[in-house]
């Protein structure tokens, strides 16, 4: 069967090619705290190891994508037929190393958000699906502590773990061509915030009064994997004042 689905909790990570210029390190099933630690730990170790040829890293839910330039590895004297074998060995070796503890604390971030009907165009749909009144949906959503698992889909888009099961709502059959920047949305069991105008099929339940992506910042994304996130409801007036 597939390793991704039955990987033993204590098994060493699996490394699989993703085309000829990337590979994926898999850490077994996604379990929020365990996966976040494994993926962020692996990122630090790979960055620290300074392996030649590696050009980018892309953390996923329980995986780390490692992008490389095969020609740079060949330049160091590795024969072309051994590029992946060489790199996999280097990666496996650096993952077994111990690094000093990551002293950064988990950040807790509160995001002011407006759930007024003018923004929350699919709140009624989510309410119907959950069998709860709309205001209780908002209360439950705002009482939840989410965790940023990873960023992707579009620049700065945070995938948030922790959505209460009751609020899970299937994606829309017809995705919207344009979703406003800041839209807070639920797609199946997942929830997230659209940082910029984009097409999308998730159900929109509110809007964040916060800029989530600014390429002039370092890092450009406001939220980072591992952050704890809560939403605090604000009125439309407060929203307009804060964004004007």
């Amino acid at each position, binding site marked *: 069967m597939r390793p991704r689905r039955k990987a033993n909790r204590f098994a060493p990570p699996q490394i699989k090619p*993703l085309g*000829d210029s990337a590979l*994926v390190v898999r850490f077994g099933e996604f379990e929020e705290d365990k996966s976040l630690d494994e993926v962020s730990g692996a990122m630090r170790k790979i960055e620290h190891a300074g392996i030649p040829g590696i050009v980018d890293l*892309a953390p996923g839910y329980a995986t780390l*994508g490692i992008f490389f330039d095969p020609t740079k590895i060949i330049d160091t004297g590795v024969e072309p037929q051994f590029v*992946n074998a060489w790199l996999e060995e280097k990666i496996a070796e650096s993952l077994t190393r111990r690094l000093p503890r990551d002293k950064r604390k988990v950040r807790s971030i509160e995001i002011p958000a407006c759930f007024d009907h003018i923004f929350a165009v699919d709140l009624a749909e989510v309410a119907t699906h959950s069998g709860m009144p709309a205001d209780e949906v908002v209360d439950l959503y705002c009482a939840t502590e989410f965790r940023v698992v990873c*960023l992707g889909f579009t620049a700065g888009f945070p995938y948030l773990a922790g959505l209460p099961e009751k609020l899970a709502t299937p994606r829309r059959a017809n995705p919207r061509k344009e979703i406003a920047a800041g839209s807070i949305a639920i797609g199946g069991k997942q929830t997230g915030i659209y940082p910029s105008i984009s097409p999308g099929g998730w159900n929109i339940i509110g809007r964040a009064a916060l800029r989530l992506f600014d390429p002039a910042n370092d890092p*450009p*994304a406001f939220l980072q994997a591992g952050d704890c996130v809560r939403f605090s409801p604000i009125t439309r007036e407060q929203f307009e004042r804060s964004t004007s």
Partner: protein
Amino acid sequence: MNVTIFRAGFSSTIQDLGRFGSRQSGVSVGGALDPHALRVANLLVGNDDFAAGIEITFGGLQMGFSDERLVAWCGGEFEVDIPAGHAARMRAGDHLTFGKSKVGCRSWLAIAGGVDVPPVLGSRSTDLRAKFGGLDGRALRDGDELALGPRPAFGAATQKVSSWSAPHDWSNTARAVPILRVIRGTDWDLFSNAETFWREEFAVTPDSNRMGARLEGAELKRKEDVDLVSEAVAPGTIQVPPNGQPIVLLGDCQTIGGYPKIAHVITIDLPIAAQLRAGDRVRFREIELIDAHRLLAERERDFACFRTGLSLRA
């Protein structure tokens, strides 16, 4: 010094070799969809690899020069006054026009000195989805003025058009009958009729863009409905959404995705994938990973030889 864009055409954007190191923030690698073509064009005009050029889609670009510059272009079959893969000397007041594309849909133009826009997150590439980089994060418009960097100390072309040229395969990358070589993806076994993928021809649909070439053909069926969690995808990844119709991801693709990955186009064949346009019919051939790396090593060696050869002419 500047170039003036008289007509921007269907979609022309400033691109370099891509934006690396920001995938963890969800930022696409972007850049020229055929980075090798841009690299060759840059080499022909004496630029370094990382200089920004212009990616032209479907043509219609017309520009004027305010000082003397070498230019070169590589890519699909376009109606242009200068042949692909040659360096040409443009003088102050000269115009350069890219007509319609006849085969393929994209080409890459390098101008000596490179297009001088401020790098954002380490790259001058335009990210059209996140709207940053390049010129204000957008495609070029009629009337835009583009600043150019200082001319490199290289001027091999004394005539209007150089007698020498880049290898034809590098400068003319569109194929009338596109065949993409791929290695199997980790999700290959999830499909009940994966063999169809080798047998059938797939048609490119009109909703293709810089994110990916969408294909239409025999439905690729999954054995069971498994819910995959999102993980890294790369330019060249062929993912299959629930409708069973594959998508070949290109440079502007998302950083992570949750659809099964049936196969991956090898880096050497990304130039062919970057030329796919609506109506094209494409086939896939299997190749081993080590052969993909061997081909890349060969091309890199040839590129180094070509670079040395050019420097002897300069």
